[in-house]
């Protein structure tokens, strides 16, 4: 991706389509000229909403009556001059204003480019950039709150604190390596070990938050799995109906699934109907099993469905999953004449026809989710993206190796090298990366206009 930092860029910041108002954002050094070009006005008062006529450059016809705001550099989102145009929405007006901009020489912004510039100009670090993106994509209150936390820099400051501790420790060691015994007092090995252990503990703590963070940002994934024709799809629809979720049968991210989102206790839950996995009535057909197992691998919880004996069927599959995460449901209980004895109340019986069992099922789901994610409180900071998690996992493995080597007698020169490497890994987390491609890659996953 060739990247020109000299250009002035523009994009629609609101979604395309019918809406009352649309916002177009322009960023770059030519914003003054752009304002004059579009409106004839000069020296706009900074940060002041101004009602103007946007004029067609060729004909001087009025294209729109808009409210514009000028943010001069460096006190703007990107750190460059920014012009925000709040124009009338719809499919026509924003388009024609953008055309005028492009004809002036402003370039269409690429996905994530405004945030990229904000990052490059040091206005936000990488964690904040990811969180802004996360906030835009938030579906629930909890998700939004967690992202806002990180936008305010809470995660960033935790990581920077770790970096600082490591830098201080390694500076101490470097000092000792550069001077003779008589010139300075040496720190003893145990003190150093303790400092590093502290960092290690904090990294482990942060890693443990990803369980929740992932669910917050990617939703709690709950597939319905079971033999063919056991009423999975009916149950799927029934749950959604009960929760008044908007059903639009969106094809799932995996082939032959349907996914639907619902908000359960302020958690975003992604319910997955796997009815399509089995083409024949052969439950143990290999392809179907394969898909089921793969879906289970991605799941946070599992609803195992059967119209006779869900436990038995489940055991036949021999799936290794913590049974705490499974809710067993026996469907079509209105049809069956068996008296079903529930052991430990572990199996729920439902009938989609008469609605029996549904409230209890929803309650069970809620309870399970709540008890797993019970540690969200005011002060919690969460890792929210896979990138953050992967890097901290790397740091975790690394620091454990370092602690082991150092405890078993490795020398100070090696320890210094290890600590420098650890700082580099943490640098990557907050975005102090010298590899341009990695950064550009991250931002290209944002949406245009951000």
């Amino acid at each position: 991706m060739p990247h020109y930092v000299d250009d002035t860029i523009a994009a629609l910041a609101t979604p395309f389509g019918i809406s009352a108002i649309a916002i177009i954002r322009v960023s770059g050094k030519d914003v003054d000229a752009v304002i004059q070009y579009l409106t004839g006005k000069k020296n706009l008062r900074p940060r002041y909403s101004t009602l103007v006529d946007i004029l067609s450059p060729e004909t001087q016809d009025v294209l729109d009556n808009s409210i514009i705001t000028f943010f001069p550099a460096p006190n703007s989102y990107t750190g460059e001059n920014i012009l925000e145009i709040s124009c009338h929405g719809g499919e026509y007006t924003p388009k024609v204003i953008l055309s005028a901009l492009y004809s002036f020489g402003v370039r269409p912004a690429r996905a994530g480019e405004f945030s990229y510039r904000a990052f490059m100009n040091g206005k936000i670090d990488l964690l904040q950039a990811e969180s802004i993106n996360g906030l835009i994509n938030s579906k629930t209150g909890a998700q939004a709150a967690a992202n806002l936390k990180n936008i305010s820099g809470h995660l960033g400051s935790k990581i920077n604190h770790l970096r600082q501790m490591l830098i201080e420790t390694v500076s101490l060691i470097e000092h000792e390596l550069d001077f003779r015994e008589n010139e300075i007092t040496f720190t003893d090995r145990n003190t150093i070990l303790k400092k590093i252990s502290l960092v290690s503990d904090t990294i482990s703590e942060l890693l443990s938050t990803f369980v929740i963070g992932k669910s917050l940002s990617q939703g709690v994934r709950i597939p319905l799995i079971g033999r063919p024709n056991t009423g999975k799809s009916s149950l799927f629809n029934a749950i959604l109906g009960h929760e008044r979720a908007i059903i639009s049968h969106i094809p799932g991210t995996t082939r032959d699934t349907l996914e639907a989102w619902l908000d359960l206790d302020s958690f975003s839950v992604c319910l997955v109907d796997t009815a399509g996995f089995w083409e024949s009535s052969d439950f143990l057909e290999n392809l179907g099993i394969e898909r089921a197992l793969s879906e289970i691998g991605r799941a946070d919880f599992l609803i195992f469905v059967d119209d006779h004996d869900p436990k038995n069927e489940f055991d036949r599959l021999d799936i290794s999953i913590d049974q705490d995460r499974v809710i067993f449901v026996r469907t079509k209980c209105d049809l069956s004449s068996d008296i079903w004895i529930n052991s430990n109340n572990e199996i729920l019986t439902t009938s989609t026809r008469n609605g029996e069992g549904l409230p209890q099922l929803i309650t069970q789901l809620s309870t399970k989710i709540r008890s797993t994610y019970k540690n969200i409180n005011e002060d919690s900071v969460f890792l929210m993206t896979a990138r953050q998690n992967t890097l901290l996992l790397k740091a975790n493995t690394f620091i454990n190796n370092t602690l082991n080597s150092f405890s078993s007698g490795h020398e100070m020169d090696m320890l210094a090298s290890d600590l420098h490497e650890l700082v580099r890994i943490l640098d990557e987390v907050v975005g102090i990366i010298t590899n341009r491609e990695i950064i550009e890659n991250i931002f290209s996953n944002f949406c245009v206009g951000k």
Partner: protein
Amino acid sequence: MNPIRKSRFPTIVIAGAGHAGLEAAFAVSRMGGRALLVTMDTSAIGRASCNPAIGGLAKGHLVKEIDALGGMMGRIADLACLQFKILNRSKGRAVWSPRVQIDKVRYAYLASQFISQQNNIKILSGEIVDFTVSNNVVSHAIMRNGTTLNCDGLIITSGTFLNGLIHIGNKKYRAGRFGEKPSHGLSEALLSVGFKLGRLKTGTPPRIKKNTVNWAETEIAAGDDSPQPFSVYTPTPFKPRNIPCHIVNTNRVCHDILQNNIGLSAMYSGRILGVGPRYCPSIEDKIVRFRDREHHQLFLEPEWINSDQIYVNGFSTSMPELVQIEALRSIPALNNVKLIRPGYAIEYDYCVPSQLKATLESKPIGGLYFAGQINGTSGYEEAAAQGLIAGINSVSCRTDNHEFTISRQEGYIGVLIDDLITKEITEPYRIFTSSAEFRLSFRPDNADLRLTQKGFLFGCVSDFQNKLVKSRIASIEEIKTIVKNKTGTTANFNNKRADEFLKQNGVSIYDISTVLIELQGFKDQDLFTVETDIKYSGYLEREQIRMDQLKGIESMRIPHNLDYHQIGNLSSEAREKLSLIQPTSLGQASRIAGVSPSDIFVLSVYLR
């Protein structure tokens, strides 16, 4: 900036015969040029101004690298050795630093003899005060007595002599070194052609009279039992003298005396810093910075064999003479001590080294080189390393436009020179192991493996030396092959491969050689290198990966005289610094203070 006329047998004038000047002259001679070594005092050739020692933390690494490139410092140090010691033994092999206490008189004598015996080196008594430039290239060097020397290159290695001013307490007087005249004229000549100069101060400890010390109250420190020579030219087994040196400690009383008189110290900066700048020049700085320490160690080192003059290592100072005496006398062993010479600070002109290229040639004027303390460094080893590089280049750039540079990825010499030409000098620059990103790869024992063949291809290393390193490389390969292919059969080895076993802490290659007896025929130094490489193998691989990653950014050249004002989106500080320093590569640009990663991004896009 290419010199216009090529010369097959260039004449290089070298202004100053200290450590930088000597290496430069020797290098010029090896490269097939003719050296005119000009010195104000022929009896001061190779004089060690201060510390009677060569080597030490990181400096020992430099000496090995100088030797690896054919230089003379290591050879002379070995011959003048009074005591050999490896410092930092407890901290890891990469920082084991060889250090030799020298007989200063013998060192100077041997250095002088050595240089006079070389082909194509002529020693001239006199002082260079000016030079002429034609077509932006140096053409003549001019002496105080009016003699004009035709030259193809001029290397300025004037040390601390340019407008030197000595401070002892409130007393100030002009000198290049204690008891020696300063030099005037050259600074003015440099200023007149537009060079930027600055002033620096460096300190030296007092010398005390040997028979006024209560030796019985001192602690004795002898050297190592198995000394190793710096130079490959030194015949083994290396059995130098092992004269003990003596240690005393300062105490509260001493510190109080210094503290109470701190305002009288010419050199004390008044800054109190935490774990900050690593350079700790004076005892005044030490007692302030490390206020809580009850004692500081002082080493009493003889300046030459049987000398009456003892150097008080660790007591660098510019306090008034009387305060120095009082403070020293508060130490039991020194309560009757008499000074032969007080400690003093010397202030001198230096040439801002960001005006130099990595070859140490000045950017504006061809054929004009600067090496040594004139560039703001401190230490004989730092000076010698620069002299070596300047000397080689003064010839090679004239004979066939070839530049000889060592990069930061090749050795400490590279780190030293890159730091000088890229970073700002605020205090005398001293090399530290922590200045090297690739410290674990740059060990004293592998300097020859890293640099000798490169030097040989370039012409500054002899055939003899090259053959030695080739044979060493072959031995090392053989040892590695044995160790990597054999599995131990004894219980000790746990059926591991020998190299796996060797990685464990506490295991040495000698433990293995009792089982793998074919290892017993090899030289100790080769076995040591293999053992260390294996123990550090994970780290060495990691450093190598980083070096490869950095290659891209290091090899992205920045065109000469790039106008940074034309590039949008650079921070104004970056623009200013980049314009000032004019880095030649993106890598160098990234090391300039004030240039941020996003500035580097902008540059990298612009340069594509």
